[in-house]
C-alpha cells in the first residue's frame, strides 16, 4: 500500500454513465491485475474503491460508473486536478492457474479489471476469450480495446440490443475454457458459479471502511476462514466461496 497524489490526465465519458479516468502518478505499488485503489474525494468522508483497469510505470487507468455522490463528483474532474489515492490494495488475480484457454467474464462496472488481466494473459501467450455483459447497447465500452489485444470478445446485453441476448452465462454455454476469471454484480457472480464447468476466480465488492485491512468492515466467511475482501480479497477462488 502507498498513499500518493495523482494528476488527472483525461476524464472522458465512454458510454451511458460510464467514464474512463486516466491518471499519472506513482504506480509502483500496483503489482497485479485485479487489485484496486481507494480514492479520497472532496466532500466524501470515506474513500471510494475502484479497480485498476490498466497501469504502466506512471499511468493508471480507471473506469467507473456514476451511481452516487462520489462517482458524480469524479465525473466532473478535469485535466490537472489532483487526487489523493491509496494504491496497491487487494490481492489481485492469480495468473498462474489460468491454463491455456482462460475465459474472462466482466459485467458492467466489473469489466475494468478484466482489461489488464487480458493484457497480461496474452503477454504470457494464453489464448484468452472475454465475455462482456451489459444491460443495453448504450452501456457498451471497451469492445474494441479488448479486440485490439487479440482476444476473442463476446458481447451480451440483457435487452438484446447488441450481441447475444441475455446474461453473460448465455455466452458461457457455448465456450470451452480451461479456467475462468469473473468480476461483476453479485447475482452475476452467483450465476457464473453455477454455470461454470471449470475452476476460477471471483472478484467481490463490499462496502469498505479503510480498504487496507484495518477495520474489519468488509469481512466474509470462506471455506478457508474469515477473509477481508479488501486485503485477503477482492479475489476469491471458486473452491473457497460460501454463498
Amino acid at each position: 500500500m502507498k498513499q500518493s497524489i495523482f494528476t488527472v490526465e483525461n476524464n472522458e465519458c465512454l458510454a451511458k454513465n460510464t467514464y474512463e479516468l486516466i491518471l499519472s502518478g506513482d504506480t509502483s505499488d500496483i503489482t497485479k491485475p485485479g487489485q484496486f485503489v481507494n480514492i479520497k474525494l472532496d466532500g466524501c468522508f470515506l474513500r471510494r474503491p475502484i479497480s485498476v483497469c490498466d497501469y504502466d510505470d506512471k499511468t493508471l487507468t480507471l473506469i467507473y460508473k456514476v451511481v452516487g455522490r462520489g462517482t458524480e463528483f469524479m465525473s466532473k474532474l478535469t485535466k490537472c486536478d489532483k487526487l489523493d489515492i491509496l494504491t496497491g490494495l487487494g490481492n489481485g488475480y492469480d495468473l498462474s492457474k489460468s491454463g491455456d484457454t482462460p475465459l474472462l467474464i466482466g459485467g458492467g462496472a466489473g469489466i475494468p479489471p478484466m482489461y489488464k488481466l487480458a493484457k497480461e494473459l496474452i503477454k504470457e501467450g494464453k489464448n484468452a476469450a472475454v465475455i462482456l455483459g451489459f444491460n443495453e447497447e448504450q452501456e457498451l465500452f471497451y469492445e474494441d480495446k479488448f479486440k485490439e489485444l487479440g482476444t476473442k470478445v463476446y458481447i451480451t446485453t440483457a435487452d438484446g440490443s447488441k450481441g447475444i441476448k441475455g446474461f453473460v452465462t448465455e455466452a458461457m454455454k457455448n465456450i470451452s475454457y480451461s479456467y475462468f476469471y469473473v468480476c461483476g454484480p453479485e447475482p452475476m457472480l452467483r450465476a457464473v458459479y453455477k454455470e461454470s464447468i471449470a475452476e476460477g476466480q471471483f472478484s467481490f465488492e463490499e462496502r469498505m471502511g479503510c480498504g487496507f485491512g484495518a477495520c474489519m468492515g468488509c469481512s466474509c466467511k470462506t471455506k478457508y476462514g474469515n477473509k477481508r475482501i479488501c486485503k485477503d480479497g477482492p479475489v476469491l477462488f471458486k473452491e473457497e466461496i460460501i454463498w
Partner: protein
Amino acid sequence: MVDTKITLSGLALDNPIIPASGTFGYGYEYAELYDINMLGSFSFKGTTKEPRFGNPTPRIAECSEGMINSVGLQNPGIEKVIEEELPKLKKCFSKKVIANISGFSIEEYVHCCEKIDGEKQVGLIEVNISCPNVHNGGMAFGTSPESAFEVTKAIKEITKKPVYMKLSPNVTDIVSIAKACEEAGADGLSLINTLLGMRIDLKTKKPVIANKMGGFSGRAIFPVALRMVYQVYEAVSIPIIGMGGISKAEDVIEMMLAGARAVQIGAENLVNPYICKQIIEDLPKTMEKYKIESLENIVGGAH
C-alpha cells in the same frame, strides 16, 4: 522545546496520541506505512472470550463528516490474540499496548481480563462496556451505573494492571456511570464509544447496514465527545482518555483542555492512514502557536 509527554496511571507516554480500538487492527497494516513506535500507545481491536465473525455485511455506511460501522467485534478470541497476535505485534511495536476487552457477561469480561493481565506487552486494559453493535451485552453494561459498577468491580478484583472503562455516549447521564466506575475502583475512563446511528439507502429503501443500526463516529461527533469529557472531568478524579471525532492537532488540544489526559483517534485512521503520524508531527508547532509549553499543564484547563 515543547513537552508532549504525559503519564497515564503510571504508564509514561511520549505523546498522548493513541489509535482507537477497532480502527488500527493489531497494528501491522499501519506498520507497513510508518514506524508505529512513534505512537503514544495503541488500543487493539476489541477482544472477546470466543472467536467472533461479527455481524453480516454491509457493515459500513457513510455520513456527513463521519461513518457508521456495525463490525460487531470480529476478533480471533482472547487465546489466539495472546498466542499469535501479541508475539507478531512485538516485532513492530516495542511500547506497551492497550488491551481492549469486550464481553457478553461479567464472567467473560473477567475471563479475558484475567488472561491478558499477565501479558507484559499490555500497559493497560480498556474495558469496552459500550459496544452498540452486539445484542445482550456490550452497551447494556455501559448504560446503567449499577451494571457498570458491577463489571468494573469484578474486573478490578482479578487484575493488577490499570483498568480503564470505556463508556457509551448513548446515555442520559454519563456522569453517573463514570462515577459508578470510579467508585468500583476503575483506574481511568475512556470516552466516548460510538453514537448509535443509521442510514437508509434511497435506491433500495432499506437500511444501508445489514444490522440496520451501527456506531456513528468521525469528525461529526466531536462536539458531543468534548462535552462528555468536560462533564465527566468535573465529576471524577481518575484520568480520562478522550476520543470521538479527533482529526487534527487542534482537536487534541481542545480535548485535553476539556479534561482528557490522552486521546484516541478512530475513524480518521481509516480515511487517512497517516493521520496519527501527522498529528504527532503537528502537535509541537500547534502547541507553540497557542503558547502551550507542556501538555501535562493543560489537562482540564478549560474548567
